[in-house]
């Protein structure tokens, strides 16, 4: 039987579907009494936000957040001095003051009682840990994807968010982008017939355990290497990691399935009404992984064979038709009789704007955002399980209730990784 939270999640799903299929979103939840004469939002109605590790994507999120009239961004925490300064410049320029505070250590920022919510866009290795620290400090969280490094982290994340009643939005913004919502809605409408196969655009799965050559450790002010590593294993410093070159290293990155699958597998889960579960079988086929849900629907994670509708494509196939769409907003359908039902979408799949607004509205109402921790947890578990199958090079059977592989000790041992001290989940 579905849990209360899962029921809530499903209700939320239906609301999002019906409200955004027409490409619209509800405006800012700011009561007029909160607006001053100059149209600015009164302090009591503002959501005070701090940021963790805002690189290029985080900066994109931040700029969209700063455009929201009810957001007041007050602090940045980063292990890199250069990034702290860069974010402070953006924020101070926006507000015309010098008020954006800078912190090295996450707990310093989280100790601030005036901060309501945090924007987390560190490297993947920090996402779960920073989110859990924020939850324990009573903050709401917008966190870039992927949200976790392992199956165990995915579970810990969802449990902590629920336990602390936080509003959590994973940065899987395609749940708030019209063409993807339409694709899911078309499946739900039954016009494709019984759902048979869902396809998720993923990248090449591999990561490497390699270490880059050691370089002299910079000053803590420049890069606090211990903090940058955070919960991930220690290795010698190399400047390439901290300048964005951490991807594809096993200790810092979940691989190509998770990189895009956190978006596309997530959408497939949604289309299959599987937000509260995962596939039960995972079979690596070359660089692809073929999965099967308990309801018989196949999930194909693949990096080739797409129609060219943009990055992060998905394809949903039923007994009577199919739909494919991607980040361009374009949609392909079959049979052709369905073309008449396809609305026009122009917003790119990479835009976090609606997603951020959804988050902010939920911070105020305490409702559940589209990419809440429970749905993110399940889609991430599916990606991690697929990557484990791919690494081991064999078919795996998974029990979604127990969140363990059936009869495969090695695979089960790969569900978690010890967290580096002094951090703990």
């Amino acid at each position: 039987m579905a849990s209360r939270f899962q029921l809530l999640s499903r209700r939320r799903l239906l609301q999002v579907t019906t409200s955004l299929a027409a490409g619209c979103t509800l405006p800012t939840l700011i009561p007029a009494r909160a607006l001053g004469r100059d149209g600015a939002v009164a302090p009591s109605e503002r959501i005070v936000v701090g940021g963790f590790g805002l690189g290029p994507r985080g900066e994109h999120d931040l700029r969209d957040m700063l455009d929201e009239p009810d957001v007041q961004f007050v602090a940045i925490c980063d292990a890199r001095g250069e990034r702290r300064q860069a974010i402070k410049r953006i924020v101070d320029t926006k507000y015309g003051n010098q008020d954006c505070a800078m912190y090295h250590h996450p707990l310093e920022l989280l100790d601030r009682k005036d901060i309501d919510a945090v924007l987390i866009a560190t490297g993947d290795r920090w996402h779960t840990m920073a989110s859990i620290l924020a939850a324990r400090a009573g903050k709401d969280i917008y966190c870039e994807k992927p949200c976790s490094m392992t199956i165990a982290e995915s579970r810990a994340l969802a449990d902590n968010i629920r336990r602390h009643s936080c509003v959590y939005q994973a940065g899987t913004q395609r749940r708030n982008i019209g063409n993807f919502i339409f694709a899911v809605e078309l499946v739900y409408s039954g016009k494709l017939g019984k759902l048979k196969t869902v396809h998720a655009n993923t990248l090449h799965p591999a990561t490497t355990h390699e270490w880059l050559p050691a370089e002299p450790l910079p000053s803590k002010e420049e890069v606090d290497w211990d903090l940058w590593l955070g919960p991930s294993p220690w290795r010698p410093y190399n400047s390439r990691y901290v300048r964005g070159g951490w991807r594809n290293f096993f200790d810092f990155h979940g691989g190509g399935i998770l990189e895009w699958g956190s978006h596309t597998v997530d959408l497939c889960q949604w289309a299959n009404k599987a937000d509260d579960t995962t596939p039960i079988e995972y079979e690596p086929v070359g660089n692809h992984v073929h999965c099967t849900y308990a309801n018989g629907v196949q999930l194909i994670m693949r990096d080739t064979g797409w129609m060219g509708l943009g990055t992060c494509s998905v394809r949903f196939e039923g007994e009577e038709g199919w739909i494919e769409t991607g980040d361009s907003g374009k949609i392909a359908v079959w049979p052709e009789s369905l073309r008449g039902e396809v609305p026009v979408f122009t917003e790119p799949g990479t835009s976090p704007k609606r997603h951020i607004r959804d988050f902010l509205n939920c911070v105020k109402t305490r409702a559940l955002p589209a990419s809440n921790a429970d749905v993110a947890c399940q889609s991430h578990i599916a990606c991690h399980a697929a990557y484990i199958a791919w690494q081991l090079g064999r078919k795996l059977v998974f029990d979604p209730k127990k969140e363990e592989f059936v009869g495969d000790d090695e695979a089960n041992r790969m569900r978690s990784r010890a967290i580096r001290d002094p951090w703990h989940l």
Partner: protein
Amino acid sequence: MKPPIGRSRTRSISVFASVVIPMTLLGASLVASSASGQQNIYAEGDESKLIAVLRSADAPLYDKVMACKTLAVIGTKAAVEPLANLLNDENLSHYARFGLEPIPDPAVDEALRGALNRIQGRLLIGVIDSIGNRRDREAVPQLRSLLGHSDPAVVEAAAISLGRIASPEAAEALLQSLSDAKAATRERAALGALVAAERLLKEGSSAKAIALYDALAKADIPAHLQGAGLRGAILARGAEGLPLLTEQLGAECQVAFATALRAARELSPAGDLTNILLAQLRRLPPDRQAKLISVLADRADRRALPAVIESLSSSEIEVRLAAVRAMRQLGDASVVPTLVKVATGEEPMVRETALQVLRSLPGEQVDQAIVELLTAEDLPTRLLAMDLAGARYINRAVPALERALSSADPAVRQAALRALGRTVRLGDLSILTRRLTQRTSAEERAALEEALRAACPRIPEREDCAAHLAEVLGQVPAETKPTVLTLLGLVGGPTALAAVTKSAYDPQESVQDAATQVLGDWIGTEAGPELLKLAKSDIADRFRVRALRGYIRIARQFDMSEEERLTMCREALAAATRDAERRLVAEVLGRIPRKEALAELARLMDQPTLREDAAQVAVALSEKLVDREPSAVAAAMEKVLKSTGNADLQARAKNLLRRASR
């Protein structure tokens, strides 16, 4: 003595040769690994050799690290002691836990408990965490004593680990610490108590869980942690938690109120919660009323509809806003007139919200109500209805919208055009296309083109639509042809392809330009042969290059057999006149896991300007192919070694040569 870091060239010894440096301590790689191939680093792991690495004083740090990582997956009781010996090693303590945590043998628990007595500082926190992850009940007395530790970080780790274990003794320890004299201890104990309560509830000990939650709700701890306890206390009681929830709705504390809002959403639909919430609604101040309305909406219980409609007349704008938003979940056709009134009203924010709700409110009857408004007397309502007809794709609105095109008011004509773009079907398409030949204002022209871009791809009878557009293409002046060609590209299919291809050879450069652009972006492989013909034709160079790039894009992007992709690559190489396109082909060849693709890359390495790029792709492809096609890989890597000066590439090529010769 600390082991040397594995990248050290002076030692040049690493068992994990394929990822670091190409020599091994023990003469053979203990694990197979590859940066881009399928990597089961555990398949060939030999526990005894890994243990030897851990025990070795000379083994590089990297090798010890990899031994720990591998033992995490394949280690047995035999690995416990050598791993545990590293728990107080500053560099390797975490890796030791990495290896130990997943090993199921109880010897791990014993080793970790032993370490508690001899380790201090942050390493101690790590060990406590590992004990919690393993839920070792025998560690409870030691963890309990650590709740009195002077370092709050140690207390926190101990509390959370006790929470994970959640034995009666662990729960009791946490309960007691909630009333500790030190605030820091109480706060950390609360984190553990929340974990413990959750686990107890899951395991069926609801009375014990409720006791913990109640204690948390009353403890002298930060409000957000009290709130978390309160949420648990409400939900753990199920229907019996309703009075507690109701109490929080009226509480002064904002955290308590927020907790009630969340709990009200999480409680299952059973019970009379909706009635309880409705009874509270009017007693609350406006800002809380608004938030409660959003809860009622999320619960989607239509019994709330009358009260929400009543809230539309509230004197407080935030209540009215919340009520309008709630209509999306609770409303139906009966609320359309009310929402239309709001959507044409004075308050911008409420107006915009009502508009959005009207655009997305489901139901055929809602559509009918909107069609009827297309003939409303007042202009704002008519304009609103046109917007809604378009946003909702209502085909039966077409006759009224067509009539609106004759309006003297340009705003009405533009609104009608936009709405027609989303509502016309094949039979109505000429309403729009015939206007392509009419002179009009720039704004109206933009509205028309937007409408056609919306309409054409949606028409189910694709070939008929393409035929109609092909006919229009022949009728419109040259400056309008790019617009029609773009539309044909959006429609796709054989008829559209034929029309666009013909235009690619048009004597007018602007038409050729538009047609080759459309072909270059064509969705589907059917444009491939036409693009290749264009690439080999005598049209202007820039269009030939564009065609060839479009052809290569198809080879790269679309689903086809390896044989077909290989053929396309060969054709593209034959047609290419510049290195830029040859590089693009090389990248596509790297996606074809066949020795023939590798051979093509080897041939590209013969060209000095392409040597490095081709070698790069060849190495990456070989890493996928080496087990299946060792001799082809060996031949290609020999060539790579002669072609590249890139040290990293050379190292990978040498490694592949070794693997190929096994």
